């Protein structure tokens, strides 16, 4: 039997120390031993029973419940002040090539895999590699759980591929304590697995595009994501280049994404006419405090998988002396004018090296990221055509009202079908500032004040934007969610409140959903919204 340890913790924090947040109970569930329940599906279903027991226990105490994985989100999206559940030990994986597919599926069954919620990206990549497969994209590193990735919309900079949630084709949700509270969701327009597969999970099938797209980036509000079916692809290699290029060219590329007609080409990455190939990934790094003519850019091109290739992982990795960073931040809090100088000194450690011929698999290129101490990140999604103007405005704000200890970057993500995906533009530029967490003093504004000013500046200049759900922002900004998502907000709420009972909608709501207004149901919910189609 799966077992749960109950820890009477009174505080919880994110990996990056964005808390602490209050807590009453921490649950940690471990699966039954393989020796006791050899079948993976049986062990998975046994875990579902345990999760339902915990939901029941929480409900009886009239408390709330929220699952979390690696705690990488910097916002309080993963937090609940009542009961939190750690998913990390729930990590069953299963290739689905031998499971019955849906008769109308267009997916190649050899590309379909089932992963329990607590599998982290690194482990998933290892499982897929053992089958000659790869994820289509990931974030910049590999430690997030799959359930956490899709709930918050984790993305890389794969401009024609999308975010992590975009290759999920099936969702197994636990929405309450009763046997009928287990669902298997797919899109009706692109089914993947048969009803027989869902019945193995003791799940009721709901094939409905609207419901699936709403639940996909569900912000933890659609119940407990127990497992996902994902579509992988044949393994491939990524060839990475880091270059310094004229900033006007870098920004022109951001706005046009027209690599064929750019003045900048990488000689090894051109077509027969000498025009630049379209990269798989494009990223720009910007030190807001340095008035240089060049920006550092990272371009990654997709290549067929061939062996051998040089090991892309460095033999020795060093990390920054954390006490030094702490000292610099303490100085910066009282003397903010020193921040640009410190960032210049740390540039070598923060920015990638200009190196050639780094080639590896997706999981090797976007490898482990060691903990570097308390950190913040504010990440805005804008249409890529607005990216240069948005950058100019936010850099100006940061210089004039800051400085704050961080640097900007731009990444590019294809539009997602998920209802509340922040990748909502045809190609979304995720314009982000990452850095070291600081405390407000008389000399420097708070992170919330800074993020509020960023929202105000973009609004004042009529630049449509979204915000990364897992990053820092002034989430209490009035009308923020409606401003960003408009009619998608009531749609998302209606699907949520159609799937969950009233009691369970409350149980699966947390502070984040409350302050953003997403926990409040619409006054009228259409009938038959979630029927299986």
């Amino acid at each position, binding site marked *: 039997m799966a077992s749960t340890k109950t*820890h009477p*913790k009174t505080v919880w*924090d994110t*990996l990056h*120390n964005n808390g602490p947040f209050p807590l009453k109970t*921490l649950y*940690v569930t471990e*699966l039954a031993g*393989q020796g006791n329940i050899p079948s*993976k599906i049986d*062990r998975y279903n046994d875990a579902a029973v345990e999760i339902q027991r915990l939901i029941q226990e929480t409900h009886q105490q009239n408390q709330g419940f929220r699952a979390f994985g*690696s*705690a990488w989100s910097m916002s309080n999206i993963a937090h609940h002040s009542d009961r939190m559940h*750690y998913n*990390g*030990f729930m*990590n*069953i*994986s299963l290739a689905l090539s031998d499971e019955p597919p849906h008769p109308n599926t267009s997916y190649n069954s050899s590309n379909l895999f089932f992963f*329990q919620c607590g599998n*982290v990206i*690194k*482990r998933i990549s*290892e499982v897929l590699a053992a089958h000659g497969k790869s994820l289509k994209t990931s974030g910049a590193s590999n430690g997030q759980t799959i359930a956490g990735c899709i709930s918050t919309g984790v993305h890389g900079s794969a401009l024609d591929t999308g975010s992590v949630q975009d290759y999920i084709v099936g969702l197994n949700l636990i929405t309450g304590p009763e046997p009928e509270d287990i669902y298997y969701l797919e899109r009706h327009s692109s089914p993947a697995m048969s009803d027989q597969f869902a019945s193995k999970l003791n799940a009721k099938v709901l094939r409905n595009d609207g419901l699936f797209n709403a639940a996909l980036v569900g912000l933890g509000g659609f119940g407990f994501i127990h497992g996902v079916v994902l579509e992988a692809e044949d393994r491939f290699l990524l060839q990475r280049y880091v270059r310094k290029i004229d900033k006007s060219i870098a920004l022109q590329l951001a706005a046009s994404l027209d690599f064929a007609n750019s003045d900048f080409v990488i000689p090894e990455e051109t077509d027969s006419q000498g025009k630049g190939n379209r990269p798989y990934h494009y990223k720009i790094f910007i030190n807001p405090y340095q008035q240089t003519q060049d920006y550092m850019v990272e371009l990654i091109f997709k290549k067929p998988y061939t062996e051998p290739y040089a090991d892309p*992982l460095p033999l020795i990795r060093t*990390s920054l002396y*954390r006490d030094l960073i702490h000292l610099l931040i303490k100085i910066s809090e009282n003397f903010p004018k020193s921040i640009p100088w410190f960032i210049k000194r740390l540039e070598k450690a923060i920015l990638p090296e200009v190196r050639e011929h780094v080639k590896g698999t997706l999981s090797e290129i976007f490898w482990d990221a*060691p*903990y570097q*101490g308390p950190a913040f990140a504010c990440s805005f999604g804008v249409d890529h055509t607005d990216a240069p103007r948005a950058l100019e405005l936010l850099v100006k704000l940061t210089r004039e009202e800051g400085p704050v200890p961080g640097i900007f970057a731009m990444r590019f993500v294809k539009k997602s079908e998920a209802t509340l995906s922040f990748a909502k533009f045809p190609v979304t530029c995720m314009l982000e500032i990452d850095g070291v967490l600081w405390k407000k003093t008389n000399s420097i504004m708070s992170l919330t004040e800074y993020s509020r000013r960023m929202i105000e500046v973009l609004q004042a200049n009529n630049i449509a934007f979204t915000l990364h759900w897992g990053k820092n922002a002034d989430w209490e900004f009035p009308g923020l969610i409606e401003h960003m998502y408009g009619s998608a907000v009531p749609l998302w709420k209606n699907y949520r409140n159609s799937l969950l009972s009233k009691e369970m909608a409350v149980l699966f709501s947390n502070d984040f959903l409350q302050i953003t207004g997403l926990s409040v149901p619409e006054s009228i919910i259409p009938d038959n919204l979630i029927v299986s189609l």
Partner: protein
Amino acid sequence: MKNMPSFSVPVVLILFLMLGLQSCYSVRIRGANGVPMPDPVGERTDYYRSMEVIEMDTTISIDLVTKDFTLLVRESEKCPTARIHTLEYRNTFGGLLLSGITFGRKRQVHIKYVCLKPEN
């Protein structure tokens, strides 16, 4: 030197010994594959944040003719796989001194290790 007070020599010696005994360096070995054993309960703020770390600070006594020794990693609650993901070995001046003056019979062991997370 001739103006240095008489108590300065022992003070300098004590300071040197204190600093020397504290001086240390670490070597960390980490496997490129696999996921470290997580610790969702702990609140570490160092390199091992969110990892289940097993620490050992002990002195091992061995006889004069024994060349080396092996520590066995066994299955435990903190290490259910009995397989290592990361190992950090710390060397100190005090440890070297102890080994030297005991002709290798007493060896200080300062290690941290993180096991691999179980796979399913």
